[in-house]
């Protein structure tokens, strides 16, 4: 009898324990209900791409020396460099340059290895078209500059985590012009000099 009763007691204790832990879990979800939603309402709010963001590639025709390093470091040798040797000036003369962004994976190797820095990454990422051939950008299209999110009056720009002020984890409450975390080197030098003076 006592054994049975103790068994029933254990059973009841288990049940109470289970209820307690489920309630604990529900407290967590309930607590989330009063937190601010972290979602970005995309067409109305947009994240500002980071400074190093690797978007559509920008190309400056005049700087290019047709060395084709970009082709050699590209995983699939994608850039098409059309040049002709001009015997008069003993130089390669670039005729046209194109990258097909339907194939490009935006690894940034070409930009990294370009000796004259005529290639650069922009912050443009929404490259959707109805026809994939339209994604094949020639040197004119590659020379265009993208619009900035911060310039668009329709959009509330939001900053990514790395560009928020120290201690702030959520972009919604922060204006995008506020200072980000970290000191500028100048400030560090100034404070160091002040310390050495004092």
């Amino acid at each position, binding site marked *: 009898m006592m054994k049975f009763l103790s068994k029933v007691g254990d059973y009841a204790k288990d049940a109470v324990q289970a209820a307690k832990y489920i309630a604990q*879990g529900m407290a967590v979800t*309930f607590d*989330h*209900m009063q937190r601010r939603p972290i*979602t970005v*309402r995309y067409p109305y709010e947009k994240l500002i791409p980071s400074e190093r963001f690797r978007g559509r590639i920008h190309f400056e025709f005049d700087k290019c020396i047709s060395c084709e390093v970009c082709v050699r470091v590209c995983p699939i040798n994608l850039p098409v460099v059309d040049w002709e040797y001009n015997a008069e000036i003993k130089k390669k003369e670039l005729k046209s340059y194109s990258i097909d962004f339907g194939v490009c994976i935006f690894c940034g190797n070409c930009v990294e290895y370009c000796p004259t820095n005529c290639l650069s990454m922009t912050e443009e990422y929404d490259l959707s078209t109805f026809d994939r051939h339209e994604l094949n950008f020639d040197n004119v299209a590659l020379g265009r500059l993208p619009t900035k999110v911060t310039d668009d009056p329709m959009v509330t720009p939001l900053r990514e985590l790395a560009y928020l002020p120290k201690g702030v984890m959520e972009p919604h409450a922060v204006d995008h012009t506020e200072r980000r975390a970290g000191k500028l080197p100048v400030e560090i030098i100034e404070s160091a000099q002040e310390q050495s003076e004092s």
Partner: protein
Amino acid sequence: MNGIDLQQSFVELLAGLGLTPAVARALWMPLPMLLVILVVTVGALASTWLERKISAAAQQRIGPEYAGPFGLAIPAADVVKLLIKQTTIPAQSDPLLFVIGPVIVFISVFLSFLVIPFGQNLVISDVGTGVFLVIAISSIAPIGLLMAGYSSNNKYSLLGGLRAAAQSISYEIPLALAALAVVMMSNNLSTIDIVNQQAGLGILSWNVWRQPIGFVIFMIAVLAECERIPFDLPEAEEELVAGYQTEYSGVNFMLFYGASYANLFLSALLVAILYLGGWELPFPIDRVAEVLRIPESSSIWQIVAAFLGITMILLKAFAFIFLAILLRWTVPRVRIDQLLDLGWKFLLPIGLGNLLITAALKLAFPVAFGG
């Protein structure tokens, strides 16, 4: 204890216009049915909206926002979308059973609302078998689920249908036992009498204080009957695609979807009626009338009281729905054998024990437990 009698006033009104009472009564008949269908549909739609909003809030999202104020038009958009969507019937299925299945489930849920009261006289039919009838009618639904599962000609659907049926009949027993303990205290199966028995002392006289164990059993069983997480095994996406709903689309799917939310609404109302004092306010409303020196029989007071009652019962029901939704987005799903274990090895003996204790208490303290 006699609220407004809408039927009587309606009949009298029409009789005043020169109609015979019989015709007036016949004219009255379809009105409450239409009203009930309306209320249930709106209730179910509100539940789907709540589900979206609450799950969004629990996950730090926003949820529907642009369709109407706070996305309130989303349920309507849902309905329209499902109505105009093409209804596919799988080629190898059994088309007749495939269509009938969801209809049976839908009807069985809507029928149960016949005996759900929203106020003293705000009920379609105050039948003597009240709660028993609800339990009986809700037991028709597994047939529809089995039908849907079998006719889809899909092993996931069949498994889902079988699981749904097994789950539904296993949890009906603890559900009935818990309800029986309440019935035992009120000496009546009628939903109205059950509520009336909880009147008097306001919140203190609600059954939840006298039947805490029964309340918990009933809540668990009702969640299982509604097939909601943690008991949504028939539709467990990770295991069975979507169970018996796998092959459904368009209107047929809407029937299932609507039935599941209507069922949630029904269960919430049942919880409110059986344990939370139905349309009673947390404080006795008669006393308020006394304090305010308003004669209880005055029509304005009665309308106010009825309005308050409807608000109360809806508040209680939606509080339960809120709890169910929050629970759904908090806990994982149990396994089917654990589910049946819980039903048969835990809830059933406890339900029986609760029944015995209630009977003993009723004999020992007839005052507090309905002599």
